[in-house]
């Protein structure tokens, strides 16, 4: 590799390692995330211009921090002149810059994540905010993953950052008493990012999001190693990620979990997930993510035992339902019930949920219903339920899978 290419790659690696750390550190002093990001993006541009020719500095992070804080001071000075703003603004930026020691940048990414997932921030924006501020993803990439128009996403991100600043959301770890609930919001946001990357698991941009979410999971576990739910989330994401290659057949068709070849699962990822889950359960504090990971662990056991222990899965979903009351969990529980107590019992459980407004447009509910109806030989309403599921599914290959399933009960179904 040529020197320039090497330097370019070093710059990219430094960017990946340091971006969130530097944003967190720069923003924590002023509360102004947008200003920190702007200064840092200028610093990265300068690095990409200078490093390939002058070589990568000994301490790339310190180099970037110095460049960014110089830029923040310049901007504050200029703004003071332009807006005749008070000296206090400049003073606070200069103070913030002075206090920094480039040799030892503390890792405040978790504080930044807690600020982004603060209860005062719209829950739907917490995941996107974390992806942008901690990982530096642009609004267009985030919008694509969250199925939003880029312009709208960009505007919402700007507004959310302004809100962090204007409302005085602190950049610090929550008090002990608040930690579990606040951490849960952070984990939810990371899981939302993971989920947003999932549907298009083979679209490079979205697949990237899955990797980024996993990385954030590692960051949380690294910084809060004693929090079982963080361990649980990371395990959950690893289990799901491990099945990526088994989810599509050689010719690109969607393969449901029950028909996947366990040999295609990523054994190393599953082993890591198992270790994490075990570590989590040693704390004796159960939670939503640990239970969901445990369900995945039971599925993963099929690679050894050759079978799925549906009784165990049903028990775990019972626990999850009690904990969350989520209708989505109730659908999964009904499917597990159909495996242990028969299709009729599963269908009855599903029909009890029929009036839930959140399930009207929830594809897995209609697919599960269709499947159980078909098994019970109720072809006509099964086809109608499949048709509903098909029109709700955004992913082409999953849609084709549902169409094939539907055709099996009524071969002339278009």
């Amino acid at each position, binding site marked *: 590799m040529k020197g320039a290419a090497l330097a370019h790659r070093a710059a990219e690696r430094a960017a990946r390692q340091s971006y969130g750390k530097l944003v967190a550190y720069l923003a924590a002093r002023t509360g102004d995330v947008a200003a920190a990001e702007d200064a840092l993006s200028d610093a990265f541009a300068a690095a990409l211009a200078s490093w390939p020719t002058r070589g990568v500095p000994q301490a790339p992070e310190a180099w970037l921090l110095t460049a960014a804080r110089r830029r923040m001071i310049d901007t504050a000075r200029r703004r003071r002149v332009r807006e005749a703003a*008070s000296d206090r603004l400049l003073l606070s930026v200069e103070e913030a810059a002075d206090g920094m020691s480039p040799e030892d940048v503390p890792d405040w990414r978790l504080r930044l994540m807690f600020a982004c997932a*603060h*209860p*005062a921030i719209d829950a739907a924006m917490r995941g996107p905010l974390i992806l942008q501020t901690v990982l530096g993803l642009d609004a267009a990439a985030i919008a694509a993953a969250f199925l939003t128009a880029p312009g709208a996403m960009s505007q919402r991100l700007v507004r959310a950052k302004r809100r962090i600043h*204007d*409302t*005085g*959301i*602190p950049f610090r770890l*929550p008090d002990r008493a*608040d930690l579990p609930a606040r951490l849960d919001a952070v984990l939810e946001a990371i899981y939302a990012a993971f989920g947003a990357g999932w549907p298009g698991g083979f679209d490079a941009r979205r697949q990237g999001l899955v990797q980024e979410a996993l990385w954030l999971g590692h960051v949380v576990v690294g910084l809060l190693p004693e929090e079982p739910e963080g361990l649980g989330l990371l395990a959950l994401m690893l289990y799901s990620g491990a099945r990526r290659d088994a989810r599509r057949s050689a010719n690109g068709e969607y393969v449901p979990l029950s028909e996947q070849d366990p040999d295609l699962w990523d054994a190393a990822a599953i082993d890591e997930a198992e270790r994490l889950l075990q570590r989590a359960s040693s704390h004796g504090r159960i939670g939503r993510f640990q239970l969901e990971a445990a369900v995945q662990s039971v599925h993963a056991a099929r690679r050894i035992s050759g079978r799925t222990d549906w009784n165990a899965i049903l028990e775990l979903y019972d626990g999850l339902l009690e904990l969350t009351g989520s209708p989505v969990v109730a659908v999964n529980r009904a499917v597990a019930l159909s495996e242990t107590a028969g299709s009729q019992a599963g269908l009855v459980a599903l029909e009890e949920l029929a009036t839930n407004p959140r399930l009207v447009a929830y594809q897995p509910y209609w697919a599960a219903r269709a499947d159980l109806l078909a098994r019970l030989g109720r072809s006509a309403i099964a086809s109608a339920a499949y048709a509903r599921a098909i029109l709700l599914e955004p992913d082409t290959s999953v849609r084709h899978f549902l169409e094939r399933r539907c055709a099996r009960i009524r071969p002339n179904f278009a």
Partner: protein
Amino acid sequence: MQYMLLIYGEERAAESMPREQMTEIVNAYMAYTEALREAKVMVASNRLKPTSAATAVRTANGQTKVLDGPFAETKEQLGGYYLIDVPDLDAALSWAKRCPAARYGTVEVRPIWVM
């Protein structure tokens, strides 16, 4: 940072409230106010007379209109405020949670615009 805790509640409900319950609420507010003072975060506080005592003024095209009644008809009405000085939003929210109004109505937390 300074935050205004704006207290909203249903005036109607307050009007028809039994005397004992009213006394209980007044006592709760007194205790809360005392707690704010003790913590040295209190800047100012006032209770407002009901919206039946409100007058709205608006000038458009050089014409001033004076209207009897509040700015807007709402289900819950602004009934008072606390102005507090605390380090950040989390501190302001934890005081807001303790405010009696959080139980009887709504507390809106707004940062003060520093000029």
